[in-house]
Every structure is written in structure tokens, then in C-alpha cells.
């Protein structure tokens, strides 16, 4: 028997390290990881996808699966993301959200609020600062947070409002970033669920248990996913 873990693209690097670490402890457990957009993965699970564990980029989607009775239990929060300002050309660490109004900044990349939690939170932060209406027309949207990161990385957008988890790994980690105050938006909590089909899969439960260990917490923190 083996385990199929699906995870939001935004936790890709952390999840790869977590699985590697898990396999050191349980080398006989065959695990494969598939990454995708949280929404898409949710749709797939609803429609019978053979996935055992789902690590979402938010809590709403796992909650929805739970509500539909497709999970073995309630969603479990495993991480909290943070937003950062990141730029390929500017020193983002010296900038604040208010600087986004500067005419030097022609384009701001962020995730699409309609689909991505990071996009929603970024919009909340900007709205709370009263900046949303001012900068809205400069904003370009990525379908997900990694696309937004790519836009910034390519220099096409002068600055990006992206996930901390992306700013700390290559190729973005050679540029400084500015953390966004977590009080400016609702928390970016991320939860996972065990799907119903994995109810009797011992590996699924073993892996779920492993998520709570300090090792994993360390890995997550390393990747900017403070929990």
C-alpha cells in the first residue's frame, strides 16, 4: 500500500522536505506527492480523485471537503503563511505597503483574490491601509501565488506581494524582502485533511501524525510557514 499526498503549490518546497524527512523514519512507506492549485485539488477530490492527504493553502477548502463528508475528520491546521513584499530590482526590505503608491512602481504582482488565499489576504491588507483603491489599477494578478512570484521575478512587475515561503527559497532568496504585518489581514492559516478513501490506510494516519512533530514544525518555519 502506498500514499498519495497532494499539496498546494505554495507549500511545495516545505512538503518536499517534510516527505524526505518522513521517509528517513519510515523508509518502507511509499509516498508520492502531487502539487496543484488548492481549488483544483478540491474539485478533484470531490470527483473521486485517488488522493489520501490534502494539504491546502487555506482552511476553507478542507472545511468544504469535511462538510461534504469526504474526509475522515476535521481540517487540521498545519501552518500559517505570511505575506512579503519582494522585488527583483528594488531593495524591498526598505519598502512598505505605502510605497506602492510611488510612481516608480508601475506594476504590483499578487495572487488573484478570487482564487488564492494569499491574494485575498493581500487585498485585505491593502484595503485596511486604505491603499487598495489607489493601487488597484497597478495590480496584476497571478492565478496563484507562484505565478505572481514569477511576474515579479521576471521584472515585469516591479514588486510582488507574495508568500514568505517563496521568498526564502531559490531563485527568489537572493533578494531581500519585507514582511507584511500579520495584523493587517486575517491569518493565512493552512489546513490539511485525510480523505475518506484513506480512512483505513495506516500510512495516511502515520503521516498525519508526523505533521505534528517538532521536526516538521522546524521545516515549516524554515520555509516561512510559521505555525
Amino acid at each position, binding site marked *: 500500500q502506498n500514499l498519495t499526498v497532494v499539496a498546494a503549490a505554495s507549500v511545495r518546497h516545505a512538503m518536499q522536505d517534510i516527505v524526505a524527512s518522513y521517509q528517513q523514519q519510515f523508509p518502507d512507506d511509499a509516498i508520492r506527492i502531487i502539487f496543484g492549485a488548492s*481549488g483544483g485539488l478540491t474539485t478533484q477530490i470531490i470527483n473521486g480523485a485517488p488522493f489520501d492527504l490534502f494539504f491546502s493553502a487555506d482552511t476553507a477548502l478542507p472545511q468544504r471537503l469535511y462538510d461534504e463528508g469526504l474526509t475522515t475528520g476535521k481540517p487540521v491546521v498545519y501552518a500559517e503563511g505570511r505575506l512579503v513584499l519582494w522585488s527583483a530590482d528594488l531593495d524591498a526590505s526598505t519598502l512598505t505597503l505605502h510605497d506602492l503608491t510611488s510612481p516608480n512602481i508601475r*506594476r504590483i504582482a499578487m495572487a488573484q483574490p*478570487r*482564487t488564492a488565499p494569499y491574494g485575498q489576504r493581500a487585498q485585505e491588507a491593502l484595503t485596511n491601509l486604505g491603499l487598495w483603491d489607489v493601487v488597484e489599477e497597478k*495590480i*496584476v*494578478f497571478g*492565478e496563484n501565488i507562484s*505565478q505572481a512570484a514569477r511576474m515579479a521575478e521576471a521584472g*515585469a512587475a516591479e514588486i510582488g506581494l507574495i508568500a514568505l515561503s517563496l521568498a526564502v527559497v531559490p531563485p527568489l532568496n537572493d533578494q531581500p524582502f519585507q514582511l507584511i504585518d500579520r495584523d493587517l489581514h486575517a491569518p493565512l492559516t493552512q489546513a490539511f485533511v485525510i480523505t475518506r478513501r484513506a480512512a483505513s490506510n495506516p500510512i495516511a494516519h502515520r503521516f498525519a501524525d508526523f505533521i505534528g512533530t517538532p521536526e516538521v514544525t522546524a521545516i515549516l518555519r524554515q520555509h516561512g510557514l510559521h505555525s
Partner: protein
Amino acid sequence: MLSLSAAEWQAIGVTLKLCLYSTLILLVIATPLAWWLAQRRTKVRIIVQALVALPLVLPPTVLGFYLLLVLGPRGAIGSTLESIGLTHLAFSFTGILVASVIYSLPFAVQPLQEAFRQLGQRPTEVAAMLGAGPIDRFITVILPLTRGGFIIAATLSFAHTLGEFGVILMLGGSIPGETQVLSVLIYDHVESLNYAAAHRLSLLMLAFSFLTLFVVYSVNRRFEVSKL
């Protein structure tokens, strides 16, 4: 049921503009290219023909990414544009238009090329002997006789641009009123599990497309040339 939000109306506008423009541009570009390719095959022509089909081979998002690299401010084309005082093409309507054109080029070129090849020399010869110059010939003889090819090229290009969102998403940044097209909106609805909205927009798009295609094909039938 079809009460649409402002964003959706805006997206419809952008989408139609994008599809029309790119179809037109494609026909303008593809016609001479296909004509040239339809001549006696040489190695150069075969290479170009193979190159034309390549945009198809890359996943659209990836193609969009590469286009972003090239058309963005740091890319070869984008930086050249900037240096002559223009703006680069990322996140602009022009940018996604360029992208759509590149992406749909094979659908326009190949049917036209085959139509021209099938046409043969005789009608052109006849028209020339009857006093028609090159442009005259093209309009009065070649165009009507290869209309089937043009219809296919146009409908495939149009439909494909309508449905494409990967390239546009990456390069366009989904800016409402500028680069946010209907397909992106539908995609968003699906991603955010807002299925009702997705169904509504999909249905709208399918109905519109079906009607358009139905009208185009019906009109085309009326002008169809009987073959021996």
C-alpha cells in the same frame, strides 16, 4: 440567469476585442506566410513550416512565461521597446494580443497553406490572362476559391483564442478591462469552487460560440463552390 456582473461585461468586451483582433491579425499574417509555404517545397519552407507549429507544443502557461521573459522589460523585445520610449508588452492588451497571435498561428497558417496548395495554378493563370493584377486576383479569385480554408483558419483561431487562458493569464496579469478575459473568469470560478457562476459563464460562452459558428458556417454554405 444571465444577469452579469460588471467585471463579466468588461471581460466580455476584452474577450471579443482580443478574439476579433487576433483573428484579423492572424489572417493578415498567415495569408502571405501560408502562400509562401504553399509554393514548391524547399528545405527552408519545410523548416519554417515546422517552426510555425511549435507554439502548440509548449503548455500555454509555459509559453506565456517565456513570452513574459521576452516581452517584459528585461526581455529582448520588451527592453528594445522601452529603449525607444515605448512600454514593454507585459500586462497589456497588446501583449496578450501578440501572445494570442503567436499561439494560434499554426491554426491559421496550416489550413490556409493547404487551401492554397489545393487551389493550383490554373485559376490564377486565368485571372491574370483576363487582366487581373496580383491584388485583384487575390481578392476576386484566390480568396473566394480558398474561402473554405479561410473559414477554418478564422474559426479555429477565434475559438482557440476564446478558450485560451494560460498564455493570457501569465502574460496579461488578469487586469480587469485590459487583459482579463472571460476564460480567465470562468477558470477563476472553477478554481474557487464557485460552480454555479462557472456554469453560467460557460454556457454563455458555448451558446455564443455555437451561434457564431452556426451563422458563419451557414453563410459559408451559401457561397460554397461546387466541385466537379
